[in-house]
């Protein structure tokens, strides 16, 4: 059980953090999370914040969480000082990435200074989850988006051609010659690159794996598979959209299905991850039982 007195200090310090970071996150909500420049990669942030708070609440419910640290505080001080310097520097220059990212070293540093190593380990994931909420610089998204668009267009058009569909690739677009002789063009723009679902799936994959009873090494290995699964899911989504455009016209493909198809990619990725995690967990159990 948490006693009232135990919570006074963390609540007061959390209040200071809130005052310092609410303006930053309000800025993200107004601009970056819905920004076209970021190709919609952070539209999931609205959901990720309650998830992060839930993770935090879940971690702090463990008994004895707020026991003070008794030895070796200097790494925590270093982390905290680094975070404060980054935050002040980011504020002075109006550098949005620094302003938000500094919350990670500040929060981890404060926990490391004040609480036990057990508390630090328990709160590490909820704090690090901010990595999926604070937008990265535009150029990182740009650098990923263009190759992803090229890959999606090439793989889907070549796969369709291999099974006999009359498809032609022109840059980042595919042109299908329909049975009625009409030409159906599909432009693979930024939002079709898969970047939007990639960041969201990384967040969801990290959350799912965090909650699984797997060894840390297995969790990391599975997490590294998430980008590959996300790309695969996006390829299947584009492929199905192209088939609908071919058989039922571009209007049908661009209508309800275009919005709905995002869910297909999402389900494929998440489904793949769940199956892999279950298989590994079963293998673990069998090895343990043998």
């Amino acid at each position, binding site marked *: 059980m948490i006693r009232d007195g135990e919570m006074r*200090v963390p609540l*007061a*310090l959390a209040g*200071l*953090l809130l*005052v*310092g*970071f609410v*303006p*930053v996150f309000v800025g993200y909500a107004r601009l970056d999370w819905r920004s076209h*420049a970021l190709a919609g990669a952070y539209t999931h942030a609205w959901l990720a914040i309650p998830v992060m708070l839930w993770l935090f609440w879940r971690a702090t419910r463990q008994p004895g969480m707020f*026991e*003070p*640290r*008794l030895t070796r*505080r200097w790494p925590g*001080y270093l982390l*905290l*000082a680094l*975070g*404060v310097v980054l*935050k*002040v*520097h980011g*504020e*002075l*220059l*109006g*550098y949005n990435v*620094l302003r938000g990212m*500094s919350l990670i070293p*500040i929060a981890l540093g*404060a926990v490391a*200074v*004040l609480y036990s190593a057990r508390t630090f380990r328990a709160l590490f994931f909820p704090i690090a989850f901010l990595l999926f909420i604070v937008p990265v*610089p*535009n*150029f990182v998204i740009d*650098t990923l988006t*263009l190759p992803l*668009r*090229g890959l999606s267009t090439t793989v889907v058009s070549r796969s369709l051609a291999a099974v006999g569909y009359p498809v032609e690739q*022109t*840059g*980042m*677009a595919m042109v299908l010659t329909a049975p009625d002789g009409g030409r159906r063009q599909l432009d693979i723009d930024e939002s079709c690159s898969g970047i939007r679902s990639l960041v969201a799936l990384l967040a969801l994959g990290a959350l799912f794996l965090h909650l699984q009873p797997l060894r840390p090494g297995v969790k990391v290995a599975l997490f590294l598979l998430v980008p590959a699964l996300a790309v695969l899911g996006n390829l299947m989504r584009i492929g199905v959209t192209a088939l609908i455009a071919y058989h039922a016209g571009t209007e049908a493909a661009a209508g309800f299905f275009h919005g709905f198809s995002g869910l297909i990619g999402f389900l494929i990725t998440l489904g793949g991850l769940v199956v892999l995690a279950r298989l590994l967990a079963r293998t673990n159990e069998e090895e343990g039982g043998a």
Partner: protein
Amino acid sequence: MPERPRMEVLVVAVLLTVVAVSPWLPRVKKREPATRVGLASLLPDHVGEWGLLERRDIAGVDGANELVEAPYVHPDGSLIQLTLEYGSDQRRVHELHYPHICHRVRGDVIVLLPQAPLYIDRDLAVPTFPFHWRESGSARSVYCRFWLVAEGTPTVDVPKVKLHQLVNGFLGRSTSAVMVRMDLPLTEVVTDDARLRAMTAQFAVELYRALPSEGRRLLFGDLAAAPRPQAAPKTVLRGGMKAQLFRFFSKTEGT
């Protein structure tokens, strides 16, 4: 339960108070480069034997601060389109457009060629990025060669420019850059790029010679703007003979 040392709490509270007030700190004004450098006025009417047809100043297009297109024609009928672009900040707002990426996105067929330095003087070279591009479905091919000058240094390394921008952003500066691009439309199928390389190199050398110091700095980098060592006289004998004759007559006059 052991008691928490008060000093730790106090130090953390002080640091977090700094964090809490930080959003209200005054913003430091960034060191921003000029938004215009006058690229159009730099273009000479003649680059060696090449004559300027027209200057097309299309500033404001695609985010760049300045974008100038200038076709130059040679007496033998060949044409080189020179494109100069200036972006005062390599973040999204005024970022340059990298030709090999833009053509690919547009759907053009592009063939990348090995990167090669272009010597504009004995000890002065700029790296260049050459490639062929052709509109999809068109038989007309164009040989293109470009380089960037970011913060006074010529380069073709786009990720390096981006990294530079990131570091500069951290330091409160902007990264300005100029792109110099030459397009040579081909009227026939060319299998040997050596002639195209030589032709664009000759044009670049003539352009360098025709530019004032500020133009050289902008288009070829800071090193190009520095005074160049004078080339050795082509015929030493002639100069030597003149000097000898001068000395000879000086002596005879004196006697």
